[in-house]
């Protein structure tokens, strides 16, 4: 309501203020791009001038030709697809299962207190240690990789979502009780919606963790995927392949993160108005 009044008649002073804000934003973006260009430019030049050995450290131009080559032979899209598929499935499973378990623990304080020490231990356990066990249980295929991704993200999801549930204002719950709300209604009308900000930040952490799980899993067992390319490239000493895969991986991870950020904006639109 106030913003609308402001935008209708902008004073000169305010105009200058807005201009300054815009200039700073633009200059930050330009600096970011300069760093990126300088990094790859320097890398390329250092390789050409033999400051570094491109055989070990690779080089942007070599990565580009590796990329084209991988793409032409038809494998790259498949490798990306495999890794993306495993990550998204692991991510979704971790989020949904973690939230469901958090709801159960919120529902019953008794169960929550009983399971508390187990959660603490599982949380501090490095889940990658379970990798060989998963391979034995699930066979050396995608199932083991997805389980790995799930194992890494699940406990963190449970703990952070549950904390979000528990941080809900007691008086907001009391308000619902004054209307005679059931436990399910309290969950549906207050606890869940007010925990959405916490859940979204849990999602953001989960994406990173799912990538960790999938790549670790692929290191251990896979026959395809970006993690496989990285390990394979290392074994046959083709660092170009390793570096290219790492670069593709970081771009994919960034894209998924941006996707969740859009989701966040959509769910928290009431905060912006």
């Amino acid at each position, binding site marked *: *309501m106030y913003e609308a009044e402001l935008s209708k008649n902008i004073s000169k002073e305010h105009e200058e203020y807005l201009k300054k804000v815009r200039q700073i934003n633009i200059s930050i973006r330009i600096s970011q791009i300069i760093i990126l260009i300088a990094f790859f430019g320097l890398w390329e030049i250092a390789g050409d001038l033999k400051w570094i050995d491109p055989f070990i450290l690779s080089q942007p131009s070599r990565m580009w030709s590796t990329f084209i080559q991988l793409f032409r032979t038809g494998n790259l899209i498949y490798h990306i697809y495999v890794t993306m598929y495993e990550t998204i499935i692991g991510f979704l499973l971790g989020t949904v299962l973690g939230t469901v378990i958090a709801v159960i623990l919120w529902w019953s304080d008794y169960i929550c207190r009983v399971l508390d020490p187990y959660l603490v231990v599982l949380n501090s356990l490095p889940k990658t240690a379970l990798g060989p066990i998963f391979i034995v249980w699930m066979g050396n295929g995608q199932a083991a990789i997805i389980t790995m991704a799930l194992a890494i993200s699940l406990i963190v999801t449970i703990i952070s979502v549950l904390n979000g549930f528990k941080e809900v*204002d007691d*008086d*907001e719950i*009391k*308000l*619902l*009780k*004054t*209307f*005679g*709300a059931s436990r399910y*209604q309290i969950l549906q*009308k*207050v606890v869940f*919606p*007010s925990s*959405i900000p916490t859940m979204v930040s849990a999602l953001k952490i989960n994406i990173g963790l799912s990538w960790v799980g999938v790549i670790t899993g692929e290191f251990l067992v896979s026959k395809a995927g970006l993690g496989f390319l990285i390990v394979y490239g290392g074994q046959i000493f083709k660092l170009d392949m390793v570096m290219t895969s790492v670069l593709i991986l970081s771009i994919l991870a960034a894209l998924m993160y941006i996707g969740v950020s859009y989701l966040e904006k959509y769910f928290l639109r*009431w*905060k912006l*108005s």
Partner: protein
Amino acid sequence: MDDFIISMKNVSMNYHTVDGETKAIDGVTFDVNQGELLGIVGPSGCGKSTILSLIAGLLKPSSGEIFLDGKVSYMLQKDYLLAWRTILQNALLGLEIQKKLTAENKKNVINMLMKYGLGDFLNHYPNQLSGGMRQRVALIRTLAVGPDILLLDEPFSALDYQTRLAIADEVWKIIKQEEKTALFVTHDISEAISMSDRILVLSKRPGRVIKIHKIITSGEQGPLNRRKAPEFRDYFNEIWKELDVHV
């Protein structure tokens, strides 16, 4: 004895924690009549809110009996409007929970919002409204479920002084217009005198009834007018003495 709508008989309430037991109220007895506005004053921690929670059924008394002849609706200290719901959705919350969200009830709520100056804000979010407006939405949310009895727990304590005087006047008018019975708790003696038909004075913890005053003032009625009435000061002094405040 026949037209009371709330009756508490010798009600006591103890709270238990691992550290021990706290006696909140002790042997409280009083009636509230149909259409009456009863104010409860007392020092902080004397169990004022406990009495409201007992009547609302949020707590069970340790001993004693409570009779209710009508539907109760409770308005808490702060507005607690849910930030992700629009004003209209907030006002409909109680009806939604009690599964009484009919087209007719919804129309009533919209009418009430319009009548009390919130018609232009139905689709706004709570953070776009002033404190006084938010409090009015909270009151309408409380009234929406069609209660016979309103329980108000320090309903204005979160507001600044001027807003507080204005909104008290407005709330009083709304309660009288809608012909509700109301029980309201405050630690502000002036506020209690300005709004109540009767005032119940509670002692320090454990809360016991010290006295019940019938408030009658000359001249025009309503909280703001009452503050100008000649009897206002006498009631104030009397209750002040009974509360026996030591700093």
